[in-house]
């Protein structure tokens, strides 16, 4: 009887699926054991031609320069002598409507200096360039800022391959009215019935 047991035990041990392919039990191990810097097969992403700046305190993370993208930067070109500003240019900020938290917390001067218009202002009154506006947002939204720096919040520019370029806060959220609106889905319901 005990001789019968031996082949049974052997079959039990070897009967599982072992075909040399990366088995199911090893996926998390494979991922966790992969700790050396990866060249990603030398692939690279096309991130467009925009000027890039490094995110402070986050090695390897880039964003598109806001100052380079702003048409009328530096702001002083208008604000220093408003008399010289054309009628059209004067309308530049008329559409700004502040819908961000409550009036007791958020006013123009929460983020902007009244004199140094080329830079943003932290709560403590320190200047921050427009390129690094995420530092202004991150003062209150620290959880989001942490997720963004890690890669769990926000949207990538280009593909998955290096360099790592991310959209910065204000590319998705209007800082004066950061909420997202409702809208209709891009695909109608009836168009999705072909799935069996």
């Amino acid at each position, binding site marked *: 009887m005990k001789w019968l047991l031996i082949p049974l035990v052997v079959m039990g041990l070897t009967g599982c699926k072992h075909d040399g392919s990366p088995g*199911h039990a090893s996926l998390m191990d494979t991922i966790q054991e992969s*700790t050396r810097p990866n060249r990603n097969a030398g692939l690279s992403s096309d991130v467009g031609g925009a000027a890039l700046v490094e995110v402070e305190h986050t090695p390897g993370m880039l964003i598109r320069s806001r100052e380079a993208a702003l048409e009328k930067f530096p702001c002083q070109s208008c604000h220093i002598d408003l008399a010289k500003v054309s009628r059209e240019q004067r309308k530049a900020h008329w559409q700004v409507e502040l819908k961000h938290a409550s009036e007791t917390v958020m006013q123009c001067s929460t983020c902007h200096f009244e004199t140094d218009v080329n830079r943003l202002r932290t709560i403590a009154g320190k200047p921050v360039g427009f390129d690094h506006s995420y530092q202004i947002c991150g003062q209150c939204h620290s*959880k989001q800022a942490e997720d963004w720096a890690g890669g769990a919040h926000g949207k990538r520019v280009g593909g*998955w391959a290096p360099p790592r370029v991310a959209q910065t806060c204000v590319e998705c959220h209007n800082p004066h009215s950061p909420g997202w609106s409702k809208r209709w889905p891009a*695909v109608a319901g009836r*168009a*999705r019935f072909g799935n069996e």
Partner: protein
Amino acid sequence: MNDLIQIQPAAQGTKSGLEQLLERQITRRAALGTVAAGLAAGVGLAQTAINPFASQESREKTRLEWQEFFQGNFRLMTDDEKTQTVERLERLYELQTGKRINVDAAGHHENVLYGYAFNVSKCRGYMDCIKGCIRENNQDRQSGMAYIRIHEHKTGSTDFSHASDTFFHEVPAAGHFYMGTQCFHCQNPPCVDVCPVKATWMEPDGIVVVDYNWCIGCRYCMAACPYDARRFNWAEPQVPDEEVNPNQHYLGNRLRKRGVVEKCTFCIQRSRQGKNPACVEACPTGARVFGNLLDPGSEIRWILANKKVFRLKEDLGTEPKFWYYMD
């Protein structure tokens, strides 16, 4: 006449062309293919003989279609055969429509294993992903096929039997949240195990693919998939010529035929070039993250290490490479 078929005695150390031909090792499939090509040539010849209007092009088309009918499993092809196969597809499309497409047969990259993360807190049900996917992957417009489904759940429930994937109203709806499903590219894919003809497999970079020419349409894989990731072409897929995405991959978004199974390939034609899948690029909320699981510096690795993640039906042991997470 005799002179013509007489075999000349071969010079020392060399063999005549006919001898080489006769001694050549040939597989059954290749032999059938050669015979078929001969037949096709014959048919073409007969066509021309009967119909003086049959053009050079129609003969070429017939020949290519016969060759395609007899092509082998993609995984057994040599690099040369792969090149011939994709060039044949390109030429056939050109003969049919007069337009050029580019069919890629690029293989995997070393030290790359693709993975996906989906932020349940961020998805707002806009379905830009579905639209992007349909266009990128040349999916049948007639049946409304879509690889991705967006499920609208009532807050507090993750029961898919009570969720709707056919909703059409302004989103996000109050008191609801959204979850997308598609092929999860399981590391232990049950769909691959059940395929009786080995027409579907997992590539070394983790992408589960289908050789549409080898698929017999038995739909076992659809029955085996616990996530409803696979789709079947009941009719000839219809894609308007002007909407066809010309950048294609043999294992990805090339045009399919009636009677074969297809599914998400993580946009293999894009991801193997370092790009993000079309759904990731189309998503305006940033709820979709894609990357290399073997790169410790990648965003997806940060999510796995720092966020609370879960996968669907983890108890089945299918090991999907698709994680959900929350803010």
